[in-house]
């Protein structure tokens, strides 16, 4: 466990989980601090749900350690650790024959909350479902069911919140509502771990993104992640034929391509651009415009997961 991890509300330290001979998650380390949103990105079968289940105390890791709200999770402490966690599962898992209110009331009682009725009212208020309290859960739309499931995960006000694909299959308006709720959790200083396939959502919500494919491939802020992968790209418009300056650019950067008067150069990172421009000018190039072109998160993600077997 490193110094960055210490003090975090959620810590996974070298987690590995195997099922018989299949390795679902290997040597995964990450932490989530109070007021931080970390997103788990990865293809289907990458181990995201297994990771969520381990962190929620539902599955014990084959090796490695988990600490939730300063509690080291073991089979002996898992029940206690679960009190500090709110888990939104991939499927809402509601009791559809019961009312919205009774769904939440049962969870308030399970958590042993004082004045459960008041807690239910507060949770319904948070997800703006107070006017549907008396409706059967089965009669709600998919988006409202998801909001109810989130209210259920938050009813005991856990400091650590795990959300497994919270906007999957929702219409844009419902997804927006859920994303706003997640952002509110950051304001409330919760540690939030979100699993998603939606790259735009990951970029919008996350303080950091973890790319997972059985093992952790990358963990960084979205901007840093975009810039970090094999450098950034910069477009340089010059006077005349850009091909004349390709050789000079290649010796400086990783790759260069000329098209008309535009030279596109891959550099280790954007901090290298001033030196590149100076080098081109020193060899006689007259530069009209310099435009950095970082790669999209999608490109970075596909390159990361595509490189893995």
């Amino acid at each position: 466990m490193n110094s960055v991890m210490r003090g975090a509300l959620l810590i996974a330290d070298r987690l590995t989980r195997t099922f018989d001979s299949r390795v679902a998650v290997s040597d995964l380390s990450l932490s989530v601090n109070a007021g931080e949103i970390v997103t788990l990105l990865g293809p289907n079968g990458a181990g995201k749900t297994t990771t969520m289940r381990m962190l929620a105390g539902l599955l014990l890791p084959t090796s490695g350690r988990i600490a939730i709200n300063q509690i080291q999770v073991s089979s002996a402490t898992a029940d206690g650790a679960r009190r500090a966690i709110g888990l939104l599962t991939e499927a809402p898992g509601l009791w559809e024959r019961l009312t919205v209110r009774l769904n939440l009331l049962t969870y308030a009682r399970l958590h042993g909350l004082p004045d459960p009725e008041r807690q239910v009212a507060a949770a319904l208020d948070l997800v703006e479902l107070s006017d549907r309290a008396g409706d059967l859960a089965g009669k709600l739309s998919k988006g409202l069911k998801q909001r109810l499931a989130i209210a259920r995960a938050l009813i005991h006000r856990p400091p650590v919140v795990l959300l497994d694909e919270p906007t999957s299959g929702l219409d844009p308006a419902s997804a927006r509502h859920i994303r706003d709720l997640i952002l509110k959790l950051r304001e409330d200083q919760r540690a939030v771990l979100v699993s998603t396939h939606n790259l735009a959502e990951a970029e919008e919500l996350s303080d950091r993104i973890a790319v997972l494919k059985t093992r952790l491939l990358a963990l960084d802020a979205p901007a840093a992640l975009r810039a970090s992968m094999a450098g950034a790209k910069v477009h340089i418009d010059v006077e005349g034929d850009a091909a004349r300056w390709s050789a000079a650019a290649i010796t400086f950067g990783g790759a260069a391509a000329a098209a008309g008067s535009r030279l596109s150069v891959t550099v280790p990172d954007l901090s290298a651009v001033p030196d590149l421009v100076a080098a081109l000018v020193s060899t006689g190039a007259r530069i009209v415009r310099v435009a950095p072109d970082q790669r999209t998160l999608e490109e970075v993600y596909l390159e990361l997961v595509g490189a893995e077997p």
Partner: protein
Amino acid sequence: MTAVTGSSWQRISAIARKDAAELARNPGAILPAVAMVAGSLFPAFFVVVGAPMIAGRGLEASGQFSEEARAAVGQIPELAGLSGDGLIQAFLFHQFTLLLLLVPVVGAMALATHSVIGEKQSKALEPLLATPLSTIELLAAKTLTPFVFALALTWIAAALFIGGVWLVSEPGVWRALLGVRTFLMLCVLGPLVELAALQLSVIVSSRANDPRSAQQLTSLLILPITAVFVAQLMGAFIVGPTVLLLGSFGCLLLNAVLLWVGVQVFQRETILMRWK
């Protein structure tokens, strides 16, 4: 984080109350149990009251019934003091009380399979397992509501049975049914058989996706009860207090084995990974 307390009992009762509310809204689960009440009562009244009326002659006209009823007085002391049609009626009603044991078995089966498979179908188990609820508490909660429902139904069936006997039979016959034998059947063996049916239903339901297929397997428990009932009717033996006590002891052992199996099945990882 909101300060949390909460005892084991609070968590069990939270799920049990939720299950009760769900069952109350699920006629498919309750109907078989209620139908079994009618099914356990009808044969007795048909044989003791309906058939003689249709045949136009009293039970005493059957020499075989008279003989068996007199012979049974030694093993069922409550029959002493009765004679003629009253004795035969009481003897036959005693025989049919065994059918009341089908009510807790069928009731428990119907309610428990719907309760467990309902949770699986709605994928409600994973969020439930992410709470402080322990798996033992979940097992207890999943058996509590069906147990109370089915036991209440059994006692309602017994009250209807005794009330019916009071209405249609000779004076004093109903009182002959209120003895040690009936008590052991309804208050000792009945709950133990019910608990076994419940545990078996919960275990089978963990591997089944449809309540009916789970019920087909657990309905095997009906066979020994029916076999004993038929053997008793054929005069092979009379189920007296000693047999009931031995049966109760056997059921207790069966429950211990089923509890062990149930605890193995109710592990978080097993529920998440193997309950499909």
